[in-house]
């Protein structure tokens, strides 16, 4: 049943597939992030108590939710790489890690910028903020573990184990605001019940969340392709590609 999927474990096919997917992800990312941001920042109504300051939500929430989604993507790739020993999956995990770290950093930064005028402080050690900071450290750990071994098979295994162990942090981030008392408010967007946000604010936010996902996908594909090339430099198909590129 999974035979067709296995064929994409071949680096050359994975490289070509990500090449075909890349423009789609890029176009969708530009369209969605563009629409969501312009709608959210310029046309969505102001909030009754936070005024215009709440608009940072259109960057903060997509960055924060995608930082967790990217982590799940990375951990899944690591899991596949670890169990089925598929190198292409390991490379995918290595490609996502720095993007996830940056997006987590953006979430923390916009959160601090939002917290100062609204709460009255840049930072507070409550459960939500602290667990999101731990997520950043997990990403940094995965990146440095992958970078610190000369042998990339070994490096991917070490980084992969850390990535899989770190998955435990994701539900902690998600439910931290429900399990413990925190300064951070509970989630606005709810899957099972009505979201506590008026719809002309909610739509641009949702568009931006999907757009951020597409953007992370697109950047991951770019990094994934270079990672494949870097790990397969000695293979004939890469050499052919290089000479073809040079002839142009």
């Amino acid at each position, binding site marked *: 049943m999974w035979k067709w999927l296995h064929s994409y474990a071949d680096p050359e096919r994975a490289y070509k597939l990500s090449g075909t997917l890349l423009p789609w992800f890029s176009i969708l990312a530009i369209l969605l992030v563009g629409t969501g941001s312009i709608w959210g920042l310029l046309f969505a*109504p*102001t*909030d*009754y*108590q*936070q005024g215009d300051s*709440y608009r940072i*939500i259109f960057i903060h929430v997509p960055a924060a939710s995608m930082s967790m989604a990217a982590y799940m993507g990375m951990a899944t790739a690591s*899991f596949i790489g*670890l*169990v*089925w*020993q598929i190198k292409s999956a390991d490379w995918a995990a290595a490609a996502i890690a720095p993007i996830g770290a940056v997006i987590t950093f953006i979430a923390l930064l916009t959160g601090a910028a939002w917290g100062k*005028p*609204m*709460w*009255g*402080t840049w930072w*507070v*050690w*409550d*459960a939500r903020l602290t667990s999101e900071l731990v997520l950043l450290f997990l990403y940094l750990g995965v990146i440095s573990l992958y970078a610190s071994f000369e042998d990339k098979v070994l490096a991917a295994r070490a980084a992969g*184990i850390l990535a*899989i*162990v770190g*998955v*435990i942090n994701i539900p*902690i981030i998600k439910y931290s605001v429900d*399990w*413990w*008392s*925190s*300064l951070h*408010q*509970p*989630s*606005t967007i709810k899957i099972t019940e009505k979201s*506590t*946000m*008026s719809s*002309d*604010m909610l739509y641009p936010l949702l568009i931006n969340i999907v757009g951020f996902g597409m953007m992370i996908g697109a950047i991951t594909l770019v990094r994934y392709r270079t990672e494949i090339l870097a790990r397969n430099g000695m293979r004939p198909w890469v050499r052919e590609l290089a000479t073809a590129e040079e002839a142009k």
Partner: protein
Amino acid sequence: MNPRRKKRLTLAVALIAGVAAVASLLLYALNSNLNLFYTPYEITHGKNDTGVMPEVGQRIRVGGMVTVGSMKRDPNSLHVEFAVHDSAGGEIIVTFDDLLPDLFREGQGIVAQGVLVESGKLEATEVLAKHDENYMPPEVAEAMGQKHEKPEYSEKQAEGYKY
């Protein structure tokens, strides 16, 4: 699935399950320590799960709603005094000598950090506004009977306070 893959899969799943078990035990043990603040009820009656009561002179955080109609402001300084209550029926008095955050108002959720000077009275050094998860345009809020006004300061009150 060949035996080697099966073994690795078992190992990986065991690793995840083990870490999840350790983490949940750890979080369960730490549970009450992970809360950012005491609720007013917990200050006077002790924590819900452990019964630990903060002592007078201890530095703590308290979180709850500002009681409507409880705010007293000194006309000549920034000194304010207000009551914070929670749904369990606890209430404590908070005093504060600095600028309040913009979101502060009666009925708003806040987190105040300070020293418990006597049972039921907190001298705050920091007051943070805790906003809720509801977002709506001002017209809708008005229709629902919710309004927000920033705390305003007279010139006399703001005297001596430099930005």
